[in-house]
């Protein structure tokens, strides 16, 4: 474990999300996560949203506390850990499909793909316009308060052009991932899609077994990013 200091805080209060920028870049890749030790609270897994930022949505005690973090605060870090997103071939168009805070790791992937000059569409689904975090053009709101009315998967289906080579990268709540998984499966494109999964994590380094999914795969090491064909439907149902 080492310590990093927060140098910048960005609050998205209505979305109950905070973005923390640290004093040092982490040598990680899009899709990887760190174990963030919030002293006095818990140590929790959080994906990199850029080489030096983490975005955290309030979900419980620790993540709620994180909303109040101030510049200068210190955090313990282990990692980055896990398998990152693989990168698309030059000719492939990338569809990044995010639900809610699932935009965090995809935001990092987006930046990396843009640097590489790749063709990318980001689709971000949220409940209402309050929860929009970045001004990507393709926004879906459940309540129709902004952009497309519906969810991210519906918008994805509308935007996907199957006539050209494509890749899908997804992160979001389980039901959303499941419906996207089924859609991709229907298209017979599971090996062209990658899903960032979540499981309860203790060690983050492949020992304790608490994050194991079907096939004996460890979400903290063989994941959190899995190719569609490494996932079974049961993985969305636990």
């Amino acid at each position, binding site marked *: 474990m080492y310590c990093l200091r927060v140098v910048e805080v960005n609050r998205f209060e209505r979305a109950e999300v905070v973005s923390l920028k640290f004093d040092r870049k982490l040598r990680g890749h899009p899709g990887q996560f760190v174990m963030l030790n919030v002293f006095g609270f818990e*140590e929790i897994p959080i994906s990199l949203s850029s080489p030096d930022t983490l975005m955290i949505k309030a979900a419980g005690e620790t993540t709620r506390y994180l909303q109040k973090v101030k510049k200068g605060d210190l955090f313990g870090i282990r990692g980055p850990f896990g398998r990152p997103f693989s990168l698309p071939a030059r000719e492939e168009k990338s569809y990044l499909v995010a639900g809610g805070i699932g935009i965090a790791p995809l935001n990092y992937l987006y930046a990396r793909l843009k640097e590489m000059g790749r063709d990318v569409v980001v689709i971000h689904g949220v409940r209402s316009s309050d929860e929009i975090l970045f001004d990507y053009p393709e926004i879906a709101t459940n309540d129709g308060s902004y952009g497309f009315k519906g969810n991210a998967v519906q918008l994805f289906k509308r935007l996907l052009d199957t006539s050209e080579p494509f890749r899908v990268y997804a992160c979001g709540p389980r039901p959303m991932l499941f419906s996207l998984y089924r859609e991709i499966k229907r298209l017979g494109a599971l090996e062209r899609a990658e899903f960032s999964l979540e499981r309860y994590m203790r*060690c983050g380094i492949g020992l304790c077994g608490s994050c194991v999914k079907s096939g004996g795969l460890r979400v903290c*090491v063989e994941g959190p990013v899995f190719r569609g064909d490494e996932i079974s439907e049961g993985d969305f149902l636990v």
Partner: protein
Amino acid sequence: MLEVEVAGMKLRNPVMLASGILGSKHSSLLRIAEFAGAVVSKSVGVERREGYRNPAVLNRKCCIVNAVGLASPGAEVFSGELREFSMKSKTPLVVSLFASRPDEFASLADYFPFASAFELNLSCPHAENAGMVLGVDEKLVKKCVQVIKDVTDKPVLAKLTPNVTDIVDIGRAAEEGGADAVVAVNTVKAMAVDIFSRKPVLSNIRGGMSGKALKGIALRCVWDLYEELEIPVIGCGGISSWKDALEFILAGASAVQVGSAFYYSYRAIEGIVRGLEEYLRLTGEKIKDLIGAAHENA
């Protein structure tokens, strides 16, 4: 070449998975069982147990320090998980049990009719009312082994703690109680403090140290137990290569268990098995003839 017989179990190779490492789900056990001589499941007690809050595991350069706190779904639920394993794999399954009193061990055995053997966790150094609290006391150790031997015909392994003045005394007590083998060792009590937050790193403050830093300590325990006990010794602690495994076998281990090495590679056990195989092909020996061989040369 690699076959050994330990505590009545015939193993195709002497490399077992240690308890608590990837041993909570049948799917990870199955994956490891492809290569392991046997797998030991995560320790389970009668009741469901939360375990400690995160941080519960810390990785350092030469070691892992953990205080997972025997997190477990309880015997009933876990027996369903392990049954699934036993239906799908021929690799022997050793079920690790923890308890807060000797008689609790007896009540646990019934849940696991499919177990190839039981391992008694008399050695977890961070659980409040289980593990090493029993395992530092010769009388309790003997009693624990006796009560479970009374209710089962399966082999019983006693897993020992190195956090005692003389591990041989404890090993002897297990032997007197009727243990079929001892496993040496579980983790050594240790901890870490973070100098920036000025707090202990683990939520439980104290934890158990495993990994490379444990190797020389565990090896000494195996050596001493081999000299004094009649029953076989299974070595555990810091084994991450075939050379480590061979070192333990030469020191007297009839088999070895591998845990923290999975931090470095999921193929930890596969690598060790392959390495031993290649070595024996070169020397033309059988692994069972090497058990304790270093004692003759000492």
